[in-house]
């Protein structure tokens, strides 16, 4: 039994639609996968910078950031290679603010934390810490 011409056309159209659907799905999957991997890397870099900053032996002692060490520090480039970043420490008792990094651009992630700030031997004040990394 010979196929009707329009049936062959329908079959051909179905095959072409199937290929297009498959190619579209593959393209979307690759693109989303790449975006997801990049987002994950960004979040990992953010957590790494935040933890490295809060635990850095040159900046903190006995679990508190040292105000004197913060004053001496110009940037944190040694902690954040290959990323744009900004770290802000605000002493909520005195209003003093330390900012490190040149700002962030592109896709950005921000993490909030807190840290005590030590002035000299006996005075410890509360501090808000905001860490941001970009592309």
């Amino acid at each position, binding site marked *: *039994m*010979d*196929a*009707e011409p329009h*049936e*062959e056309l*329908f*079959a*051909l159209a*179905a*095959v072409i*639609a*199937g*290929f297009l*659907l*498959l190619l*579209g*799905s*593959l393209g*979307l*999957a690759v693109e*989303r*996968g790449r975006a*997801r991997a990049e*987002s*994950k890397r960004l*979040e990992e870099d953010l957590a790494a910078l935040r933890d490295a900053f*809060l635990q850095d032996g040159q900046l903190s002692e006995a*679990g*508190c950031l040292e105000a004197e060490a913060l004053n001496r520090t110009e940037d944190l480039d040694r902690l954040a290679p290959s990323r744009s970043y900004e770290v802000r420490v605000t002493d*909520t*008792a005195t209003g003093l603010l330390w900012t490190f990094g040149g700002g962030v651009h592109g896709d950005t992630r921000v*993490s*909030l*934390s*807190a*840290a*005590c700030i030590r002035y000299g031997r*006996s*005075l*410890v*004040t*509360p*501090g*808000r*810490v905001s860490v941001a990394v970009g592309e």
Partner: protein
Amino acid sequence: MRPDRRGSLALLDALLFLTVVSAASALLLSDLAPRAVDVRGDGERYARAVLQTSLATTVEGALILAHGQLILLDPGPLAEILADALARPGRVNVLPLLWKVTASLNPLVREDWGYLFTAAVTSETGPRQHLTAVGHVPFPAGGDNFAATARFPLADGDSSVLDVALRLYPRT
């Protein structure tokens, strides 16, 4: 398509192919659901950082009302001040100390979150004093919240401990 059997069977083959490809596409796309972010772990990390910071902060000029007298506590970390105030036996009013706690926590906790802070001293003979502070918004009945706790044994020979807890929750 099979060359020897054409017609409606060729169309059926094509539709079968389309079905298989659709299923494969659906499988591919189903793997693209947004990744679950570790909100709980990050919220609890934030709560721990806020609690530890608050407890380490130096408190000066803290007052308590014990046996009808105002007592000025020695300056020190908030954890020591709380232990000193809450370990006292008898009737002690620690309300004057409350604003020191809220003054420390209010700027530390992000503005769009609320908090519930509790501190209590318990000894072998039972509970002594306790203190509760809330900030930003009233504590909700449900919803996400993130907790951090700390315990400090007191050197009073009575196996007393100071238990401190902080619960943070987004307002929305």
